[in-house]
C-alpha cells in the first residue's frame, strides 16, 4: 500500500501523535522595523552542517530551510522545503516532493540536486559535521565520503527519494534538524572552506553584514517562499556582550532581546521589579539535569546504592538554589516531551529509606567518592547541595569542579564515579523521546568517549528502544510512545541516573516587541524564532 499524502494537513495528522495544525498568522503583526539581540559569545559559524551552539542554532534556522520544519513556538512537525512526502509501507523509503520556485539568496532555484548535495556534504567525514551521526539510518551512511550517500536519490528535479537501512520513526525530525538544511553547492565551493562566514540559504533572512567579533546584520529575504514572513526588515546581533550588561542596555531601550537570558545574579532583582518582571517570558525546555552514577565503578555497581542516592537527594532544595527556575524531575524525560510517563512519582526524598538501602548493600558506614561538576555558576553550588544530601546518609563526596571540556572528557573515559550534568547535558536536539536514550542511556553511548557517563548498558532496554523506533508508521505513534515510556521506566528501575530537575527558560523582551510569548522561548528555534516576531 502506498499513499501519497498530498495535502499538508493530512500528512501531519498521520505523521504526528499530537493534533497537528499549522500556524495561524498573528492578526496584529506588522511588517517592518529592526531589532537588536545580544550574545556574550561570538558566533563561531553559520554553516548549517557545523553550527551547534546556543547563539547560532536559531540564526541558522532563519537563514536556511530543510525539507521539514516545525510550527513556530511548538514541537509540531510541518513540511518545509518539501511540499509533501510519502512513506513506504516498510518504513524504509521516504519520497519527498519539493516546492517549486524556491530560490536561494543568490537567486538560483533550489532543486532536488541541492538536497542530495547537502545530505552528501553533511555526512561526508571531510566536512567534520558534529551532526553527521543523526543521519545514521540512511542507507550507505557507513560508506559516506566524497562519493556521497547511496541512499539519497534524485528522481526528478523536484523529487528526492531517501532509502533507510533500518526503519527510523524519528527520520522526519532528523530532516528538520539544522544539519539537514539545503545549501547551494556553488556557494559552498566559492567560499573555499569558509561557508560558515559566507552563508547562502533559502531562509527568511539573508546575511547582510558580519564584522567579526562585533555584529551581524540579517536582512529580510523579500522573495521568501512562505507568504507574509518574516515581519522584520532586519535583525542586528551584537556579540561580546556580558549578560549583565545586556540587561542594563535592555532597560535603556538599546536592546530588544538579551539572547543569553536573565543572568542568575540578577534574577531576583528582575523578578521583584514589577516593570522588569512584566517583560519576562517563561517557557518550558526539553531539558533534564541529572546526576550520573557510573555503574562500572564500585559501589555504584550495586543497584541498592544507586537507589539510595536517588532517595537521598532533596530535589526541591536544589531547585530553590536556582531561584525556582526549574521543576523537580522524576524521570529522564522532561514533562513536555512526548512519551513522558504521567503519574510516575519517581524516588521520593527519604533519608531513612536511603540509609536502610545502603545498609542492605553492606555499606551502612557509607563510603567516599568523587562528584564531577562544571565550574561555572550555579553548578558548583548545586554540587555542594548534593554533597550535603549525600553526607546525610554517610557518603562523602569530594567535588571535582573543572572546565566543561575536562568534565566531558572524564565522563566519556568513565573515570568519573558521579557527574552533575548541569551546563553540559541534556537539551534535546529534536522533540522526540528517542533523543534522551541512545547517546546518554543506551549501549551506543556507553563506549569510550561516549556521552553515556553512567556507562549504563542494558541490552533488554536497548532492544525495546530499537523496536520503538522501527514503528515508523504514523498510525502506530501511540504504541511507540508507550514503548518509550516503558523504556524509561525500565531505566528508573535500574537507577543509573538521579534525574534532578527540568529547567525552565526565563528571558526578556523589550516593550516594543510583538508576537506570541512562545516565539521567545521557542522549543526548537532556540532561543528566539526571528521569522515570526515583530515590532509593535
Amino acid at each position, binding site marked *: 500500500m502506498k499513499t501519497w499524502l498530498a495535502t499538508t494537513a493530512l500528512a501531519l495528522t498521520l505523521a504526528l501523535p499530537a493534533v497537528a495544525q499549522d500556524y495561524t498568522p498573528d492578526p496584529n503583526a506588522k511588517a517592518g522595523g529592526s531589532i537588536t539581540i545580544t550574545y556574550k559569545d561570538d558566533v563561531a559559524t553559520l554553516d548549517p552542517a557545523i553550527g551547534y551552539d546556543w547563539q547560532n542554532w536559531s540564526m541558522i534556522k532563519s537563514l536556511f530551510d530543510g525539507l521539514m520544519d516545525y510550527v513556530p513556538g511548538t514541537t509540531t512537525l510541518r513540511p518545509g522545503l518539501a511540499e509533501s512526502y510519502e512513506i513506504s509501507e516498510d518504513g524504509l523509503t521516504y519520497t519527498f516532493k519539493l516546492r517549486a520556485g524556491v530560490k536561494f539568496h543568490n537567486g538560483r532555484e533550489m532543486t532536488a540536486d541541492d538536497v542530495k548535495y547537502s545530505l552528501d556534504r553533511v555526512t561526508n567525514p571531510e566536512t567534520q559535521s558534529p551532526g553527521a551521526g543523526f543521519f545514521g539510518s540512511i542507507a550507505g551512511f557507513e560508506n559516506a565520503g566524497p562519493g556521497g550517500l547511496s541512499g539519497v536519490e534524485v528522481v526528478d528535479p523536484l523529487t528526492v527519494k531517501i532509502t533507510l537501512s533500518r526503519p527510523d520513526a524519528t527520520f522526519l525530525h532528523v530532516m528538520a534538524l539544522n544539519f539537514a538544511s539545503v545549501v547551494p553547492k556553488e556557494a559552498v565551493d566559492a567560499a573555499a572552506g569558509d561557508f560558515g562566514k559566507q552563508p547562502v540559504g533559502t531562509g527568511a533572512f539573508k546575511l547582510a553584514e558580519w564584522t567579526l567579533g562585533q555584529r551581524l546584520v540579517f536582512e529580510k529575504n523579500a522573495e521568501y517562499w512562505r507568504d507574509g514572513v518574516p515581519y522584520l526588515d532586519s535583525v542586528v546581533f551584537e556579540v561580546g556582550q556580558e549578560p549583565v550588561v545586556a540587561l542594563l542596555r535592555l532597560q535603556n531601550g538599546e536592546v530588544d532581546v538579551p539572547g543569553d537570558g536573565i543572568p542568575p545574579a540578577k534574577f531576583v532583582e528582575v523578578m521583584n521589579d514589577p516593570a522588569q518582571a512584566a517583560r519576562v517570558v517563561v517557557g518550558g525546555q526539553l531539558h533534564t539535569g541529572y546526576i550520573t552514577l557510573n555503574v562500572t565503578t564500585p559501589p555504584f555497581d550495586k543497584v541498592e546504592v544507586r537507589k539510595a542516592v536517588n532517595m537521598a537527594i532533596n530535589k526541591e532544595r536544589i531547585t530553590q538554589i536556582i531561584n525556582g527556575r526549574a521543576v523537580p524531575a522524576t524521570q529522564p524525560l522532561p514533562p513536555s516531551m512526548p512519551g513522558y510517563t504521567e503519574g510516575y512519582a519517581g524516588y521520593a526524598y527519604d533519608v531513612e529509606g536511603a540509609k536502610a538501602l545502603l545498609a542492605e548493600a553492606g555499606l551502612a558506614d557509607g563510603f567516599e567518592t568523587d562528584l564531577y561538576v562544571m565550574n561555572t555558576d550555579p553548578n558548583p553550588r548545586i554540587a555542594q547541595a548534593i554533597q550535603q544530601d549525600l553526607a546525610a546518609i554517610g557518603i562523602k563526596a569530594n567535588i571535582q569542579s573543572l572546565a566543561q*571540556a575536562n568534565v566531558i572528557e572524564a565522563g566519556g573515559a568513565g573515570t568519573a564515579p558521579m557527574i552533575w550534568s548541569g551546563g553540559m547535558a541534556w537539551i534535546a536536539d529534536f522533540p522526540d523521546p528517542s533523543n534522551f536514550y541512545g547517546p546518554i542511556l543506551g549501549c551506543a553511548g556507553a563506549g569510550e568517549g561516549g556521552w553515556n557517563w553512567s556507562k549504563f548498558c542494558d541490552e533488554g532496554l536497548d532492544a525495546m528502544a530499537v523496536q520503538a523506533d522501527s514503528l515508523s508508521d504514523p498510525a502506530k505513534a501511540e504504541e511507540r510512545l508507550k514503548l518509550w515510556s516503558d523504556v524509561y521506566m525500565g531505566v528508573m528501575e535500574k537507577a543509573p541516573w538521579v534525574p534532578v530537575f527540568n529547567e525552565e527558560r526565563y528571558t526578556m523582551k523589550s516593550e516594543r516587541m510583538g508576537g506570541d510569548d512562545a516565539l521567545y522561548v521557542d522549543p526548537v528555534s532556540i532561543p528566539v524564532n526571528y521569522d515570526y516576531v515583530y515590532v509593535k
Partner: protein
Amino acid sequence: MVYVLRRLIQSALILLGVSFITFVLLYVLPADPVRQIAGRAATAETVENIRQQLGLDQPFLVQYGRYLAALAQGDLGRSYLQKTEVSDLILSRLPATLQLMAAGIVAELILGLSMGIAAALMRGRIGDQLLMMTSFVTVSAPQFVVSLLLLYVFAVKLGWFPIGGYGTLAHLVLPAITLGILGSGWYSRMMRSSMVEVLRADYIRTARAKGLGRARVVFRHALPNAILPIIAMIGIDIGIFMGGIVVVESVFGWPGIGQLAWQAIQRVDIPIIMGVTLVSAFAIVLGNLLADLVAPLIDPRIRLR
C-alpha cells in the same frame, strides 16, 4: 649590525621556545579537541576519522614538526570549530587590540608621568607619600575589579560612557583607563626617581642660578633628560599589556584578540590558542627589540655591544 643580527636570532629562538612550550601544554591538556568538533552525536569511527584528518593521531613531534612547517610559510592553520583561517580571525581583531593598547599606553603615560613629576617636585612631603602610596595600590589592584568598578560608576551610575562595546572614542575611554591605571604605578615611580636624580644635577642648579623660572627649569631642562629612560620602558611594557588585555577585553566586550583567545580556550580550539599566543609573544619580543634598538638613538650614552 652584528648586535642587531644577534638580537634577531635571539628573538627567533625565544619565539620557537614559546611555540614549543605552548604546543606541549596544549598536547597534554586533559580535554580532547576532537570530541568538541565531533559533537555529542558522533560515533567512535567519526571521532577517529576526524582525529586522522587533523593529524592528531600522530606522535607529538610529528604534529609539532607539521605545525612549524606550516608556520614557516605563514600558515597558522584553520580554527577547529569555526573552520576559518586563524590568520584571518586574528587580523580582523588586531586593529581593535592595537587601538586599545595605544590608548592604554597614552593613558598610563599621562597618569604615570604627571604623578611622577608631581611627586618628585614634592619630594619628602606628604603629597609625595600620598602619590607613591597610590601607585602601590594601582599596581596591585586586580584589573577585573578595576574594570567593573569603572564600568559601574562611570557608565551605569553616571552615564558618561557607553556600557561596554566598541566603535567610538567614548567606548575606548574606560578600557584604556583600566589598562592605564595598572601601568601608571610603575611609570610614576620610575619618573619620580629619574626626576629626583636630574633635579640634583649641576646644570639644573646652573639654570636656576641664571634666574630661570621654576616651570621653565622643570619642563625645558629637567624633563627631557629625566624622560629618556622611561621611553625605553614602553617597549618592555607591551608584555604586561598583553596579559591585561584578555581580562579587559572580556569585561568591556572589546572585540580584540584577547576576547578571541578567551573564547577559544573554553572550546579547546587549539589553532586559535596557538595563533594568539604566538602573535602576542611576537609583539612582546618585537617591543623589547625595538626598545633596545631605539634607546641609543635617544640617549647617546647607551652603546650597543
